[in-house]
């Protein structure tokens, strides 16, 4: 199954071939999960969203137009599903107001951080940096966070991000610029303090 291209894989998924569906899941679950996480800022919610998204995707493969890229379609489905998820739980506003404890929301991922080859002190510092960055990212508005994720992690172009976010390229450019400025402001003190050590 790994040798099949996306189009062949989708054809088999349409026929409910379990092996193909599993391969499709392994190919795209990380991407979908990371985008969901960047919007929802919570592992449990992101996993729940990923489950809903894949069920939805498998049920609506007939609607996929082969003209566009499968990833673009998946990003769009993920984005819509996550925003619905947000609204349905009425969390949108409370997330903006409250600063969630990053250990609560990403604790399991942080526990996976082994810090191989680092001394305990370095490992502690590295962990501290990560938590601080997660906290800073979480404070960005949803659209900014999403744009940062699509650019930095998925390395998409402005044009592709604009298509997914349903806005103009100029807006994407501004969002990324403002997100970087905000991150710089949020992390300035922390980095200066860290360098002094």
């Amino acid at each position, binding site marked *: 199954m790994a040798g099949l291209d996306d189009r062949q894989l989708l054809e088999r998924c349409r026929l409910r071939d*379990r092996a193909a*569906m*599993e391969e499709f*899941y*392994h190919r795209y*679950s*990380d991407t979908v*999960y*990371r985008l969901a*996480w*960047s919007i929802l800022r919570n*592992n449990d919610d*992101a*996993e729940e969203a*990923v*489950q809903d998204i*894949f*069920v939805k995707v*498998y*049920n609506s493969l007939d609607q996929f137009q082969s003209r566009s890229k499968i990833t673009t379609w998946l990003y769009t489905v993920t984005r819509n599903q996550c925003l619905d998820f947000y609204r349905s739980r009425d969390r949108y506003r409370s997330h903006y107001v409250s600063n969630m404890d990053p250990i609560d929301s*990403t604790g399991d*991922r942080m526990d996976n951080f082994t810090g191989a080859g680092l001394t305990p002190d370095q490992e502690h510092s590295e962990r501290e*940096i*990560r938590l601080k*960055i*997660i906290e800073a*990212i979480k404070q960005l508005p949803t659209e900014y966070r999403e744009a*940062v*994720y699509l*650019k*930095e*992690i998925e390395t998409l*172009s*402005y044009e592709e991000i604009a298509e997914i976010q349903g806005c103009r390229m100029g807006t994407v*450019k*501004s969002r*990324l*610029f403002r997100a*970087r*400025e905000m*991150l*710089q402001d949020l*992390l300035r003190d922390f*980095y200066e303090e860290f360098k002094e050590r």
Partner: protein
Amino acid sequence: MKWVHRYWKKQLSAYLDGELQGKSLQRVEFHISDCQKCQHDLEIWKQYRLSVKNTIPQGPSRDLFAGIMNCLDTQPAKLSFWEDLWMWHRLPPVTLTVSSALLVLALVISLQPIMKNIGTNTETILGQDSTVDYSTTLDLSAEPAYLLVNEDV
């Protein structure tokens, strides 16, 4: 001068993303070589890029696929459009109201000729000619028949 630096900073962001080409790319590269503040910002942003890459979790838990398949297996079979339409409870209230109103209207229109026929038939049974206007032929000023009989007596 703050807004000038802000302009360059915005260009710097696009430069970092590899979105500049041609003259704008050359201009920014030239500016960076000359501006220490921009060099500093660029370095910081590069650090953030690396940090963000290391921070975002890699993927969902391994047993999630089994959960997805379980969801798909327990889902009811997908219905066709007509089957779906037949399931009245799936229709939203507005659709139901509109379709009910249309149905009643269609019923009234289709029943109108039948009702008309029923009216005509009733008149025929009672021995009345529907073409005659009884209200105008009836002479209300004339004496009632039973009074005439009494006078004769």
